[in-house]
């Protein structure tokens, strides 16, 4: 009843090819955006912004990037943490070395640095496939870890390699309060997510999907594997790089090379798989899951232990968190290997018929 596409006739090609062809989807997206831009800033507390909402937005952005590479183009990558790091340090260098550099161009230039780095480490994908590639992309991760720790030029010769940014402004408006940071991240996320959504349903997105489904067959029907794979690496690492720059500039403020460890790569891959491969929407679900879960466990476990009358040390709690996190991920992969996006589409199917059973 609620989600019924019957009767929505398209009389022009434009109408037929719009991003959300179903009216309910359009209403839903607009409602979510209105809620995020207008209601959330009024309702949420400072803690909620800093601990949950801003990390969620930035990781959603990164997950969209990873999803383009892993979900749409089928190249499993464990180098996402490195792309984030390159984005962050690239943006930092442009921001600090060029006087008067505004924030937004610095972010974009940081993203472009990540693009160059991503294409370079995407080159092996032309020869190497599948799990071999996944391990090979770890090279990017360890190389970036080493590069920002040992080559002091990137970190302006600070002894420990830790750097900081301050006085962030966007179009003359200071980015100081949590609300302004939230709105800025949200705006970047919405713009890039829209771009990504349009890319994946365009010609290039179809090439990526053809490569993912079977690269030899795709090459036979005239898709250039090199162009398709490298463009996926380029677009994906650009988005991840911008996300990394945002993470460093907006969320961390001051960071050191170990801030973008291999753990980030794993977490981003978790987000994409749990959210759903090949689904922009799924990236948001996955990011929400992975960002909120550790925080929820962190809050919930001491309460639970207190209720049961157990005495658990902080170390014990962090170990229990690790166990529950791992177990939940495994459980999740078992019950829904296609991710939350699949649950979402099942829910939509059910809604089409509701309240009737058939």
């Amino acid at each position: 009843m609620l989600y019924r596409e019957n009767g929505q006739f398209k009389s022009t090609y434009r109408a037929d090819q719009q991003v959300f062809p179903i009216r309910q989807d359009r209403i839903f997206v607009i409602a979510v955006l209105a809620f995020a831009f207008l209601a959330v800033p009024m309702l949420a507390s400072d803690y909620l912004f800093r601990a949950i909402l801003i990390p969620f937005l930035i990781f959603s952005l990164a997950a969209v990037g990873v999803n383009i590479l892993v979900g749409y183009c089928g190249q499993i990558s464990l180098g996402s943490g490195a792309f984030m790091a390159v984005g962050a340090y690239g943006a930092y260098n442009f921001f600090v070395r060029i006087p008067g550099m505004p924030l937004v161009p610095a972010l974009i230039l940081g993203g472009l640095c990540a693009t160059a780095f991503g294409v370079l480490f995407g080159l092996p994908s032309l020869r190497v496939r599948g799990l071999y590639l996944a391990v090979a992309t770890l090279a990017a991760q360890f190389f970036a870890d080493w590069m920002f720790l040992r080559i002091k030029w990137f970190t302006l010769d600070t002894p420990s390699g830790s750097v900081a940014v301050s006085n962030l402004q966007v179009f003359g408006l200071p980015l100081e309060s949590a609300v302004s940071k939230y709105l800025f991240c949200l705006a970047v996320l919405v713009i890039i997510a829209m771009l990504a959504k349009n890319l994946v349903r365009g010609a290039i997105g179809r090439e990526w999907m053809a490569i993912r489904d079977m690269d030899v067959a795709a090459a036979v029907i005239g898709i250039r594997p090199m162009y398709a794979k490298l463009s996926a690496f380029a677009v994906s690492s650009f988005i991840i790089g911008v996300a990394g720059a945002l993470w460093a500039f907006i969320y961390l403020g001051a960071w050191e090379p170990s801030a973008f460890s291999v753990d980030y790569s794993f977490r981003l891959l978790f987000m994409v798989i749990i959210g759903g491969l090949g689904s922009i929407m799924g990236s948001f679900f996955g990011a929400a899951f992975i960002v909120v879960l550790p925080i929820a466990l962190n809050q919930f476990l001491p309460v639970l232990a207190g209720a049961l009358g157990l005495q658990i040390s902080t170390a014990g709690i962090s170990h229990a968190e690790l166990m529950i996190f791992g177990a939940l991920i495994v459980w999740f992969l078992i019950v829904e290997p296609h991710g939350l996006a699949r649950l979402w589409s099942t829910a939509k199917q059910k809604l089409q018929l509701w309240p009737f059973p058939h």
Partner: protein
Amino acid sequence: MGFFLETLFGGLMVGMLYSLIALGFVLIFKASGVFNFAQGAMVLFAALAMARFAEWVPQWTGIENRWFANVAGFVLAGVVMFATAWAVERLVLRHLVNQEGATLLLATLGIAYFIDGLGQTLFGSNIYKIDIGLPKDPIFVLDSLFPGGILINKEDLIAAAIAAALVTLLSLFFQKTGTGRALRAVADDHQAAQSIGIPLARIWVIVWCVAGVVALVAGMIWGSKLGVQFSLATVAMRALPVVILGGLTSVPGAIIGGLIIGVGEKLSEVYLGPFVGGGIEIWFAYVLALVFLLFRPQGLFGEKIIDRV
């Protein structure tokens, strides 16, 4: 020249230990097509179990004998690894049959998180020692040829010997026993193996048990070298290039890959490192593996990839 040989030899020794960890990856991948990221966590878990049991057993029984404590620790840790293998197969893998590679990869990553947490909850998170009585003193060989001779760590030598013995034992097990033949059959073709009556579930438990024992031996040797601590789990990250270099499906590949990576790592660190600021061994190993992969995408000894549309 003496220094070069010394570095080379050190690299070979380290490489032998890498191949020990790589072996665990290869065994599981061969038999079940799962790229087991939890191998590093299993090494840490096994080492923790052994270190702690070797400490606890004398307290429980009152027998103060290092050999007895170590053997008891090894056996009990082995039992723990068997239990882990069984649990992993029963609770996780059985439910994930026929899923995509990426999903399985992440499932093992989830297992790795779980085992990391479990190991530290059960056995504590301090730095522990495994003392299996490896001699620490270096020996000098070939001093007739070079001034001062070549310095070789006796500990490394024994560790490499243990690794070599384990590999021989595993090859014999794979080639000469009925179970080994069944394992190879499963590795070749799941469905065909099942259709002639080989129980897949049991084979998987056996493979994970064998991988657990390999992890235990690796954990024992690495643990006695470096101390048992959380960073032991990251040793597996350094064994990953070995796996892809040698080929995911090849046991000899794991050994030779290990030696190549070990030597490449040490030589690059000594001769190339000073020019670029040092600490390059970890990514150099990956780049070295990549160079080999460019020429053989399936690794040195991996099964040839045949593309069919």
